[in-house]
């Protein structure tokens, strides 16, 4: 058996059959700390903002041609605010605020409206219902390329809808697209902890009811840059490896202020 001369770091896995790893990802029962914090900030595109490409409407001109459609891969507001930056808490177990239980089974609407996805990036928890909705007078379809959850590609007639419940956390936001109108692209961030935020048109984000006193690991991502790992805050360059930073928050509000995201990430 010449094969054994190859490097084998792991023992032959004859032990596998016996081992089942049970991973509990669900929130720990609320208890000790009843103090909560809010983390907010504003992402700013650090550099000359790119001009968003105009979409060449190739389909359903009589409907979609009416809208001034622009590529949404990088959206920078008038004052430099960078939209669609996604922030989430990586901790496997988080002591979630009891209020989140009330929204645990909410319906989150992801609309196909004016030939684009609204919102462009949607955050949803496992167990909540994602309502894919079509508010346009033409059919759309929604294809989601998930990793952990089943992928789907469903047709949505005008006025139609389709409901999906995700059961597993996705490591990174997953792309969603419409094949009929290929310019339509959006993202879903699917996690089983409720701590997700997406920066708005002004670049601002806010994450409320975070457990205070716990070391939290945040991860920051944008669809075009991938991990947001090259940023400046208060004139200081920060290296967020793979878009991660850690913070232990005291109760109350914490504003990170302006976070300048290097334009080099988007080249």
């Amino acid at each position, binding site marked *: 058996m010449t*094969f054994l001369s*190859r*490097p*084998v*770091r*792991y*023992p*032959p*896995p*004859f032990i*596998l*059959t016996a*081992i*089942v*790893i*049970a*991973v509990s990802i669900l929130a720990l029962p609320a208890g000790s700390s009843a103090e909560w914090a809010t983390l907010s900030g504003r992402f700013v595109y650090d550099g000359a903002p790119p001009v968003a*490409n105009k*979409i*060449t409407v*190739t*389909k*359903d001109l009589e409907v979609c041609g009416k809208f001034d459609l622009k*590529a*949404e*891969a990088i959206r920078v507001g008038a004052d430099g605010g960078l939209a669609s930056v996604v922030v989430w808490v990586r901790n496997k177990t988080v002591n979630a605020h009891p209020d989140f239980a009330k929204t645990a089974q909410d319906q989150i609407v992801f609309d196909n409206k004016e030939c684009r996805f609204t919102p462009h990036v949607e955050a949803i928890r496992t167990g909540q219902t994602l309502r894919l909705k079509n508010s346009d007078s*033409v*059919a759309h*379809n929604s*294809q989601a*390329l998930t*990793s*952990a959850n*089943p*992928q*789907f*590609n*469903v*047709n*949505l*007639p*005008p006025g*139609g809808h*389709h409901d999906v419940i995700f059961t*597993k956390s996705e*490591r*990174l936001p997953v792309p969603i697209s419409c*094949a*009929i109108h*290929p*310019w339509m*692209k959006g993202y879903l961030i699917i996690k089983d902890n409720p701590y997700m935020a997406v920066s708005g048109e002004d670049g601002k984000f806010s994450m409320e009811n975070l457990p205070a006193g716990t070391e939290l690991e945040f991860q920051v991502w944008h669809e075009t840059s*991938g*991990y947001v*790992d*090259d940023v400046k805050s208060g004139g200081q360059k920060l*290296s967020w*490896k*793979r*878009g991660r930073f850690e913070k232990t928050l005291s109760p109350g509000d914490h504003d990170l202020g302006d976070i300048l995201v290097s334009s080099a990430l988007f080249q």
Partner: protein
Amino acid sequence: MSIRKHPPRPWPLLVLALTLGSGVAVGCGSSEPYFRANLTEMRLRESRDEPISPELQSEISNVLLSLFGDPDAPDIFAGQGVAAEAKAPLEAFGFDLAKLQLAAGPAFSDQTGKQHGLYRLHCAHCHGVSGDGNGPTAPFLNPYPRDYRQGKYKFKSTFGDAKPTDDDLKRILKDGIPGTAMPSFVLLPDNEIDALVEYVKYLSVRGETEIRLIEYVADEGEMPEGGIAEIAGGVPLQLDDDGLPEAEPEYENVVASILYKWAAAPTRIVQPVVPTVPLNSQSSGKDAEALAASIERGRKLFFSAETKCASCHGDAALGDGETTNFDDWTKAVFQPDANMQIEAAHAAEMLALGALPVRNIRPRNLRQGIYRGGRRPIDIYRRIFSGINGSPMPAQGSEAGIAGDNVSDDEAGGSVRRQKIWDLVNYVLSLPYEPLSQPPRPVEGYDITLR
């Protein structure tokens, strides 16, 4: 295994050596075939500031070697280890080792005439030794051969992203895929077809495991803490009396959760509703009127705002409605922007890592009467109901509607009532017989000389 010591050098090995592009020592013994690492996946997922290190890359390949062996010996660790009851991992995964052994390794026939190395004999030149759809002949084929590593298959009886059943894969092997380079292997004995089906599943599970490990390592910067035991974990799957898995393993148990999807495929077969209209392929005189009415309803649906079939298949169903899109395999690697443009520098990088040159996907020209996933009405029903996994073609039905008449239309959901899908089927099957689909006849009176 004395016979293995002198395997003939089959030509695929030589070709493999050539494609490795080393240009070194061709002719004096090609290098042993090996599973190529999924370099594009690594590049796409790793972060700029901290790429996947060579150490982590070799850890991934070591895990894969331990679990799946190599192209010559999937059972490389069979019978080893301290425990007397040691099992080859593949056996624990539920693979039939005898079948895998028949399909793996170099191609040769032994003294009894038994054929070995079936995969390399019949498949590897297109689908590649690693099952990456990137064998030596792949660049010359259109469409490209299937890359099994994403575990994604187009032509099957199951809904949406569900895995194909064994019977689905057998059907593809026996019928081939009309309109593509995939030939029919109907002349192979059943046991060889079975062995190839098992081997394709093996390559697919291996490839998907690799992608999941890359996904993990790229984000975490380390291998899973639980090591190989966690990665495989939860095998063998607990099966019920029907051979179906009882519970879905955790996503962290990479191999087990992939195997689960394969084992659960039979639960996701699309059963159509019983047609209330005569079907195009079995029409007789007295049904002609009902069939014509069904075809007409199907035509209206084809051009309707609900289904939007014509949007991609074109106003004349020539498959020319949407020619700028890409399939999932291409999209994932080349990442087109909102105007379906691909950045040149990114494309060059992907090509350098071994990706095949980018191509658009073409919606089917429905006037040719060539149906890749089969031409039976039920095949067309399933294509329309389920969509085509891996392609932009969406599902008109929904998972709830797969149980045929056992669920009501209200429960079944979907964008059209399921009986209407039969109208669409009838319309699609009628298209090749429309005058527009027939080749033009030579005009009488002209002297036409054939060249």
